[in-house]
């Protein structure tokens, strides 16, 4: 519940394990210190404390906390790329000025309670509508500043249009963080990601990112490498590419994703429920260890009390026509959960009520006795909801109550393992320094 790791000297290991087993067996001051450390970190709790209720309380708070707003805005669905696996179905929509006005109203209406406003730009390729980004971000920053509130913004871009001029414009629009994806090594990337006229893109993207990082030390990038293959030559080629960012270690964070299918095809299974096979787990561990050993940092998210931050009522994905979703994947008509209006985002109450009615009792019933709940939080709620509509394919949790082993690690639980790996490497580096 607290995400706190605590450590003891190795010579206390036996005693620590004994006290965890029987916390009332305190014999001396050392035992008392061990006990207090376990207690203060909530690693042991009182018998009368109902952990499940506490977890639900924390989850509810994550769902309804209303002083942070996060909007992912899709200014266009158009793209200058023609990737082999793209899931976007409607590629001809731009956001009009009328929708920009409604976005401003949504921000203004919530401006007093938005202690933190986060705007993520997504697409399509958002840099095709850079003027939209500038218009909204400059307004949002002024609004937040005038209320002494905070503002953060980042853009998920394919990086091809990240020219010197566009970099300056992004920075003037208060964007210093970019999300970039490479499709593996340069060879594999160029076979999956090409422009509309079939040109290669790897070198341009890589150089643009490095130029952006060179421009200002405050600039930073979150870099995702898609892994289309478990072939060792490919894996080593990806690691080599990461090493080419050596100069920018402090400005970048990496993560990896296996991608073998079109996103919509795998949607019904849901990434949360995908159990990585043993080969994939060992490859990921190998890659993370290699890059961390060189001093690179993986992307690690802080402790969360829900599976996805967009389960919160104030977090939305806004499409070019003002339809509001809870996820950037599969933004189709049946997944519209709200509408952007002149009075801000109006939640589809009927949809939410139906959603909660179908999903929450299942979570309550299935997850109550599952020790994995604080890590997985029941997985993606949208996946559960979609499954609830299909009598022939009911939702089946693939890791409910199952002990986690080396060949059975769901995606979300791997992140927890990664957190502890990162701590180990940070400690090693401290010792080296």
């Amino acid at each position, binding site marked *: 519940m*607290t995400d706190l790791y605590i450590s003891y000297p190795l010579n206390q290991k036996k005693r620590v394990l004994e006290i965890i087993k029987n916390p009332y067996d305190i014999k001396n001051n050392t035992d008392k210190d061990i006990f207090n450390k376990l207690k203060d970190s909530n690693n042991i709790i009182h018998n009368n404390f109902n952990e499940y209720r506490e977890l639900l*309380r*924390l989850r*509810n*708070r994550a*769902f*309804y*906390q*209303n*002083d942070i707003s996060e909007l992912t805005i899709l200014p266009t669905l158009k793209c200058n790329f023609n990737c082999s696996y793209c899931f976007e179905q409607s590629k001809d929509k731009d956001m009009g*000025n009328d929708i*920009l*006005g409604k976005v*401003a*109203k949504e921000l*203004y*209406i*919530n*401006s*007093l*309670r938005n*202690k933190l406003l986060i705007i993520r730009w997504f697409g399509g390729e958002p840099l095709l509508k*850079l*003027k*939209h980004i*500038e*218009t*909204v971000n*400059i*307004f949002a920053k*002024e609004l937040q500043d*005038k*209320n002494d509130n905070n503002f953060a913004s980042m853009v998920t871009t394919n990086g091809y249009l990240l020219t010197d001029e566009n970099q300056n*414009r992004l920075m*003037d629009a208060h964007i210093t963080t970019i999300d970039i994806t490479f499709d593996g090594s340069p060879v594999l990337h160029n076979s999956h990601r090409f422009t509309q006229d079939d040109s290669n893109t790897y070198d341009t993207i890589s150089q643009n990112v490095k130029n952006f990082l060179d421009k200002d030390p405050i600039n930073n990038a979150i870099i995702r490498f898609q892994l289309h293959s478990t072939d060792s030559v490919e894996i080593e080629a990806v690691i080599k590419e990461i090493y080419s960012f050596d100069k920018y270690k402090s400005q970048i964070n990496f993560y990896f994703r296996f991608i073998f299918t079109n996103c919509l095809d795998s949607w019904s299974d849901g990434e949360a429920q995908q159990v990585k096979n043993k080969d994939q787990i060992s490859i990921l561990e190998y890659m993370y260890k290699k890059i961390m050993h060189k001093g690179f940092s993986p992307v690690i998210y802080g*402790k969360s*009390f829900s599976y996805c931050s967009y389960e919160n009522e104030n977090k939305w994905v806004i499409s070019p026509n003002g339809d509001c979703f809870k996820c950037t994947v599969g933004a189709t008509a049946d997944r519209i959960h709200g509408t952007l209006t*002149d*009075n*801000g985002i109006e939640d589809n109450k009927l949809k939410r009520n139906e959603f909660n009615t179908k999903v929450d009792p299942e979570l309550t019933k299935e997850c109550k006795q599952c020790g994995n709940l604080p890590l997985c939080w029941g997985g993606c709620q949208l996946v559960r909801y979609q499954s609830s509509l299909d009598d022939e394919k009911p939702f089946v949790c693939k890791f409910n109550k199952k002990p986690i082993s080396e060949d059975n690690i769901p995606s979300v639980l791997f992140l927890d393992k990664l957190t502890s790996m990162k701590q180990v490497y940070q400690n090693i580096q401290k010792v080296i320094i």
Partner: protein
Amino acid sequence: MNKEIDLWSVVEELSDDQVKACGSGCSCGCNYENTGGSSSSQNSKANNKRNLHSPQSNCSPYDSDPGAP
């Protein structure tokens, strides 16, 4: 500066009552719905309301516990 439209002029259409200080069902006791600012300026309009609102920030209908985890 590149701008599509002037968004400040767009939000001038909004009335004081539309600005939310807190979520519906809030238990902080600010009773914000009965407190309105009167300034025509968009910024002082917002500040009037904030001053009347409880400093509690993590205000949700499910938890009035002041401490965030």
